[in-house]
């Protein structure tokens, strides 16, 4: 990749940033169009694996963009994998993608929330913050539903759904540590019980 290519990548990520309304995963189709089909900087398999890994690993889902940049840098280094040069390009790819995707939206968020905080007693600001609350609950429930459905069909994987239901009750009613629940799920799944 030439210097111009890197600049192009940065500009692309900067332009995408403000479109990420509703989470970074909604950007995946456009990233695929540009990085895989358009520029050919990433393979199909690398793209899919990056998203799956980022979903499974802890941390914000937007980290898949950083992983895409990392793989892209490794590809740009060519055959010299494992060398200092390929590591440097991988870090550069990661930095360009992460900074590009975060900087514009972060600046806008900071400016807008500072404005909102100064005018927090205004009726319109209060109405906005409180009026959105039921939507938050609905969106959270939808996310839970989509995650549960992604892990299995309830007609075949009844025990998986039972696990989800039990965890829902435990989280709602108790203050058990979330890591215990996740570890329990990993053990049950690893042993093939769910």
């Amino acid at each position, binding site marked *: 990749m030439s210097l111009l290519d890197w600049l192009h990548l940065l500009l692309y990520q900067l332009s995408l940033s403000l*479109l*990420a*309304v*509703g989470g*970074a995963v*909604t950007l995946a189709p456009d990233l695929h169009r540009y990085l895989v089909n358009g520029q050919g900087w990433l393979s199909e398999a690398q793209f899919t*694996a*990056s998203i799956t*890994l980022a979903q*499974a*690993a*802890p*941390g914000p889902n*937007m*980290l898949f963009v950083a*992983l895409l940049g*990392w793989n892209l840098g490794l590809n740009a280094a060519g055959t010299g994998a494992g060398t200092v040069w390929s590591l440097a390009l991988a870090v550069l790819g990661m930095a360009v993608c992460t900074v590009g995707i*975060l900087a*514009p*939206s972060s600046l*806008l*968020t900071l400016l807008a*929330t*500072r404005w909102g905080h100064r005018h927090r007693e205004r009726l*319109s600001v*209060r*109405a*906005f*913050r*409180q*009026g*959105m*609350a*039921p*939507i938050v609950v*609905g*969106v*959270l*429930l*939808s996310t839970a*539903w989509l995650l*549960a459905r992604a*892990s299995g069909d309830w007609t075949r994987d009844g025990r*998986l*759904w039972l*696990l*989800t239901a039990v*965890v*829902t009750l435990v*989280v*709602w009613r108790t203050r058990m540590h*979330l890591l215990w629940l996740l570890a329990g*799920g*990993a*053990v*049950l*799944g690893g*042993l*093939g019980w*769910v």
Partner: protein
Amino acid sequence: MTAGRAASSPRTVLELFWAFSWLSLQGFGGVLAVVQRELVEKRGWLSNEEFVEDWAVAQVMPGPNVCNLALMFGDRHFGWRGAAAALGGLLALPLVLLLTAATVYGQLAGHAAAAGALRGMGAVAAGLIAGTSLKLLAQLRRHPLGLALVVAVAAGAFSGLVLLHLPLIAIVFGLGGAACVLTGWRLRRGVNS
């Protein structure tokens, strides 16, 4: 809903950084449920009402929601430095972990036990988020719209997304906009004030 204020707040920028690192490392399948548990229930840095309101703003602004929430929270306590510390904490350690995972991915992907463990954790992650949303719903009893309308709007958002496959932006601006207008009207009339 102004009754519920945070009981405590972060003392230093470093404490903020580690708090967000720690919660981010627990966030399998989404960090949001963990943010509620850590910042609201464990540390008392936010009340449930503040959490829901902040989350709504983070949701409407472009950019990753949890990142926006971290920026807003850090900025409120320590300005630019706080925003950078919270966002840095959210991203740095999980990123290192993710790169390590990506490097060993080739060896692990074939194992049935690893795939099963991932499935089990996915089911638990779904339960974490569902449980958190029920907890938040219970907190909205004193909402200006009244509990029945709150449940109706939440159910509307859920069915719009899951059954009708509407884009989130339509739900937020359509249904959310209507809910805001109605809330403003109720607030003006002095209900629950």
